[in-house]
């Protein structure tokens, strides 16, 4: 077995190229569980936790927020980044525990591509771009093209997740992330929902987690809400219809964590609640 601990992106790509099939290790919160419990005996590991380029985030010339794959949940929750991407901050707060949030990264969340990954519904709602890098050059994929199924991605051999890019929240925007589980801490979502409300663009976006093989959007519900919200006051009649359309877009299953029926119910409740919080903000602005 070999372990490489590069500190620069180029060295990380070299290490991946020279050890085909190597496991990429970020925060370790997924891979090490599989190693400890005996399921995995990796032949080679490339640990990317200290790759400087992956640890950075910033606002780019086009106004988009670029978040390096190695940015941790703890970092997502803090300071200016949390203000630019409040939905990701909210999702990060619901992940595991302080210990897990110090280790786990947004790139790891994407790479594992669990249907329950907490940042993924938010990234879906924000139409995030996933930026990949390899010796052949960079690639940019939409989230829906990147995550192809449960724990399946379009990542090619030798390729690394470099960053995600999302549009920043501007004044008046709200990004809510709501999650159902057995307790607040250390919980894998039974159902989760991100609701983004952008009054200046008259836009509503809904991303869902744990109710399908990969993060889903509820586009019919989005369009219905955009057309029925009184954007001057934030008033919305028949929020139950919004919830119904969200539930309709979900594709949940029965498993050891919950049932198809409960998940469909829960995601509708979460979506209605998230939208109500977003619209409350508009009422506040009007007053």
């Amino acid at each position, binding site marked *: 077995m*070999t372990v490489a601990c590069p500190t620069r992106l180029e060295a990380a790509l070299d290490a991946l190229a020279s050890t085909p099939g190597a496991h990429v290790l970020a925060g370790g919160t997924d891979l*090490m569980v599989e190693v*400890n419990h005996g399921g995995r005996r990796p032949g080679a590991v490339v640990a990317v936790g200290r790759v400087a380029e992956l640890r950075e985030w910033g606002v780019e010339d086009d106004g988009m927020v670029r978040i390096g794959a190695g940015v941790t949940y703890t970092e997502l929750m803090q300071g200016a980044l949390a203000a630019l991407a409040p939905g990701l901050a909210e999702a990060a707060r619901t992940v595991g*525990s*302080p*210990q*897990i949030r110090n*280790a786990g990264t947004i790139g790891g969340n994407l790479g594992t591509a669990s249907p329950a990954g907490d940042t993924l519904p938010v990234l879906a709602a924000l139409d995030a771009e996933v930026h990949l890098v390899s010796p052949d050059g960079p690639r940019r994929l939409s989230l829906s093209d990147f995550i192809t199924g449960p724990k399946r991605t379009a990542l090619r051999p030798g390729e690394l997740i470099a960053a995600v890019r999302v549009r920043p929240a501007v004044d008046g925007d709200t990004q809510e992330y709501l999650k159902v589980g057995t307790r607040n801490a250390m919980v894998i979502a039974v159902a989760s929902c991100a609701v983004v409300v952008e009054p200046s663009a008259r836009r509503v976006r809904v991303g869902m987690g744990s109710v399908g093989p990969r993060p889903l959007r509820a586009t019919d519900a989005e369009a219905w809400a955009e057309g029925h919200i009184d954007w001057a006051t934030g008033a919305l009649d028949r929020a139950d219809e919004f919830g119904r359309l969200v539930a309709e877009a979900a594709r949940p299953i029965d498993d050891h964590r919950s049932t198809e029926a409960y998940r469909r119910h829960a995601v509708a409740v979460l979506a209605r609640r998230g939208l109500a919080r977003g619209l409350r903000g508009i009422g506040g602005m009007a007053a």
Partner: protein
Amino acid sequence: MTEHYTLRVNGRDHEVDGAWLGESLLYVLRDRLGLPGSKSGCEQGECGSCSVLVDGGLVCSCLVLAASAVGQEITTVEALGGPHDAMSVVQEAFVSEGGVQCGFCTPGLVMAVHDLLVRNPEPTDLDVREAISGNLCRCTGYGRVLAAVRAAVGAGGVAGAAGAAGAAGAGGRSE
């Protein structure tokens, strides 16, 4: 990388020889370096009993690939107290408030509380609950643990700690 590497733990270099490179930091600490303070509960990051500081950040050592922590500063519960088995203020508070019953979760809780008080010397009750939300206790109960944190804050927290405790957490390194 060869199967020989060096870890810097509690301010001292430790050689790790003949190890399988897939071993967790927790395993290496306990079974190769003779530092059994960090406890092995779930080995999946759920229980927090193996909490240590890596470069000043609180993490579950069971989820750290030991060989990937080369060059990083690791601080375990063994380094919190002062010389001659003196306990830190946080450790004293756990004893005086009865925050220790079977003791299995205690090292992890002590590390989490130590980390909290380094970052936030006057935490609210909510801050404390959040800070220990990744540490499972199944017998003492959390009431006495919360009391211990309040007592530790009252006694000056990590600033008032004996020995290396404050320095170990603040910069992730001890002398």
